[in-house]
């Protein structure tokens, strides 16, 4: 009976392992971001990776996970890595490096842009992953491939984060400038409007005043000047005039004899 139970437990554990490891799929992420149940990685290298993951999280907000499996998942390495990433990293920026011990195609990777890399372009993101993996595959040993792949993935995602951040800042600045420009434009329009609101009635009033003044003046001119009445200095029995003493003679065009008074 005991043998049967032990046999069942062994079979069950093997069954779990071959059914794409639902245990860690649903569970919490490993503390240092390294899942290595086989303890395939040397302790020093594991610590190194864990330290690098902590730094990436602190510096760039990127979560990196390294998963070491004894065999390739039935779902396919990349799909499986993506699944794990979503479970552990959620909607944040994350990257998963999946290594199957003894598999020459290893490692694989999957990543999510998340909020941090919102402004990174999709092509840049894909190129970054490819570049990390190509560098990892170039390494001669499997453990080196994992170490280099994890480091490169961290760096690439971090770098993209910086670029994205810069873009974000630039966009923010541009937005601010745009807002400022729009504000200035609005202020200018308001100023023009105000100037119009004040200037137009003022000009109208001035125009009216000027028109009134001009009309008054022209009316004054039209009415003309009225001389005061005087008591006539009647003389020589003349009822209307006492004569004048102005006489000019024009015997020739230029002579100064033109005018004389006796």
């Amino acid at each position, binding site marked *: 009976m005991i043998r049967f139970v032990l046999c069942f437990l062994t079979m069950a554990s093997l069954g779990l392992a071959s059914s794409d490891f639902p245990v860690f799929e649903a569970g919490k992420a490993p503390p240092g971001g390294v899942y290595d149940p086989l303890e395939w990685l040397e302790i020093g290298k594991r610590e190194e990776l864990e330290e690098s993951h902590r730094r990436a999280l602190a510096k760039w907000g990127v979560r990196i996970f390294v998963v070491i499996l004894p065999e390739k998942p039935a779902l396919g390495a990349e799909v499986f890595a993506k699944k794990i990433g979503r479970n552990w990293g959620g909607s944040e920026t994350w990257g998963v490096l999946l290594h199957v011990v003894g598999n020459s195609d290893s490692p694989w990777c999957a990543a999510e842009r998340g909020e941090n890399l919102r402004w990174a372009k999709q092509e840049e993101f894909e190129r970054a992953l490819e570049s990390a993996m190509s560098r990892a595959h170039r390494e001669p040993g499997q453990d080196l491939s994992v170490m280099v792949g994890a480091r490169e993935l961290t760096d690439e995602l971090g770098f993209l984060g910086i670029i994205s951040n810069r873009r974000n800042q630039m966009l923010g600045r541009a937005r601010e400038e745009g807002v400022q420009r729009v504000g200035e434009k609005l202020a200018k329009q308001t100023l023009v409007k105000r100037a119009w609101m004040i200037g137009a009635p003022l000009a109208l009033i001035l125009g009216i005043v000027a028109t009134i003044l001009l009309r008054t003046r022209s009316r004054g001119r039209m009415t003309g000047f009225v001389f005061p*009445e005087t008591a*006539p200095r009647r*003389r020589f029995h003349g009822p209307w005039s*006492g004569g*004048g003493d102005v006489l*000019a003679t024009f015997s020739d065009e230029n002579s100064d004899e033109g*005018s004389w008074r006796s």
Partner: protein
Amino acid sequence: MSKESQARSRRKVYGAQMFAQSAMACPGCHGILSEAFDDCPRCGYSGRTAVAKFPFAAPPIERFIDPVGYLSGDARQKIDKALGLLKRRFPQVCLSICIIDLVEETDPREFGFWMFNASEVRDEEDEKNRPWTILLIIDDQNGRVSVTPGYAIEPFLNEESWESLLRMERKHFYEKDYEVAVLRFIDGASQILKVGAARALHRIRKRSSRSDERNRKGGRK
């Protein structure tokens, strides 16, 4: 009493001496008079002398007195327009242009005096206008021009200004271009009247400010 005459009676009448810019002269001997005499104290000249000298009916004082027709219809139209403008500026003032051929012995000044007074007054309008009339006499025959003002406008005019004006327009009078000469004369007359009007206004203001001052001083006492 009509409204107009009531208004006239209310209007202040000043002494002509207050505004007078030129001395009075005898039309016969042209001597300067210190005051208005019925007969010239120097030569005994009076209206009667003038009537005796010109024993015929004087023509009516109209805008144009031009029996020979020195001014064409076109020229009269232009002069009419200029006189209309002058009338608008100085509504009381009338200008009469007389172009006539006088004998050499006849002085245009004396002729003007005679014509002004001997000419019959046709209606009320004429009676109202006559003292404000300025009569320009052009003696075409002898190349002489004279200016005779009525009693009402006389104190506001400066004879020297008329002489300057005539001297300035000498060329046109000499050439007998009477259209241009008269038009330019009207232009100049407008300036002379303007100066006269400004002076009159100044005198009235000065006088009223003086009387105000006097009243104030009287009030204090």
